[in-house]
């Protein structure tokens, strides 16, 4: 079983009930008419493909059918937190990098960030606010 916390249902649900919907936090240009072709093309077609922390849009397709955001590590597939649309992520590549400096995060031999020593993962999966 692979369980994902739905911030709307407020509980862990089986992964089968969810679908990923791509990168989150894509802002539509306020004035599309004023966009250059490149800006509009970037908005429409180009997506980040980071190695490590990625913020994604998911939908609880079989449950409440609502969209929400997921912070996921694309290397370990670990889901670090889920949060509602409109809310900012609590965990970002930057926040993990600064944790790393403070010695809160274990660094894998490849130099890739993995969440380790902190309880951040467990806490967020349970949906508790730190």
């Amino acid at each position, binding site marked *: 079983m692979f369980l994902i916390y739905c911030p*709307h*249902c*407020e*509980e862990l649900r089986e992964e089968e009930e969810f679908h990923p919907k791509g990168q989150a936090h894509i802002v539509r240009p306020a004035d599309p008419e004023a966009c250059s072709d490149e800006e509009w093309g970037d908005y429409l077609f180009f997506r980040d493909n980071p190695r490590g922390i990625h913020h994604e849009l998911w939908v609880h397709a*079989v449950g409440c*059918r*609502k969209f929400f955001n997921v912070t996921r590590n694309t290397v370990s597939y670990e889901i670090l937190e889920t949060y509602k649309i409109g809310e900012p992520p609590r965990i970002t590549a930057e926040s993990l990098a600064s944790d790393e400096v403070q010695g809160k995060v274990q660094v894998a031999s490849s130099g890739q960030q993995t969440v380790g020593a902190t309880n951040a993962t467990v806490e967020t999966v349970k949906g508790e606010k730190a």
Partner: protein
Amino acid sequence: MSEQTATWFNHYDVRPQSEVPAESPLAWSYRKTGRPAVSQQSRVVLRERAMLGHLILRGGAIVLDEAVRRVLGFGLPGRPNTLTQDDDGQRSIQWLSPDEWLVIVPGGEEFALEGRLREALGDARDTAVKNYAIVNVSGGQTLIELEGECARELLMKSTPYDVHPEAFPVGKGVTTVFAKANLILRRPSEQRWELVLRRSFADYCYRWILDAGAEYAIGVDA
């Protein structure tokens, strides 16, 4: 903005008196697959409660709660994935999503209920924050009950959702995966599980349940 808000709706009886008989989504399955009889050995009993009134309510919880309290005498469930019922368990409201609830009432009540709810919500249409929708989905789904000592075991074979009493207490209800389809699974009382099946999945789910229940000598209470 408010001038552009549609304030009209079609409120009509979807099941008028007519020569065309209304049929449950399982009518075909009963003819094609049949109904194994309930026997002494049956450790699961399936019972359809066909032709109930199903309404979907959408909108803000506070406004809708006020209206259903006035009309039905009990409020919306306060927590996600729970349901509320009236005293004799004939009428229920289930949380489906943060702005969506399923109301189930005895068959034939839904038309009048929709009218009374719209009346109670009347002024609510005047402001944008109070937008709401009521949709009669009675024809699109049916409700079946599972009872018996092995009902939970049958569910465990069919859904990834945890149906252990600790995870699934009385009063809970969820939309989840069932076999390779999905349905609404609810537990209105200690002994009884309720499954709300969509019409298009009804035959598949019915045959799945009979197959999964074969080892418990499942019977269909006609």
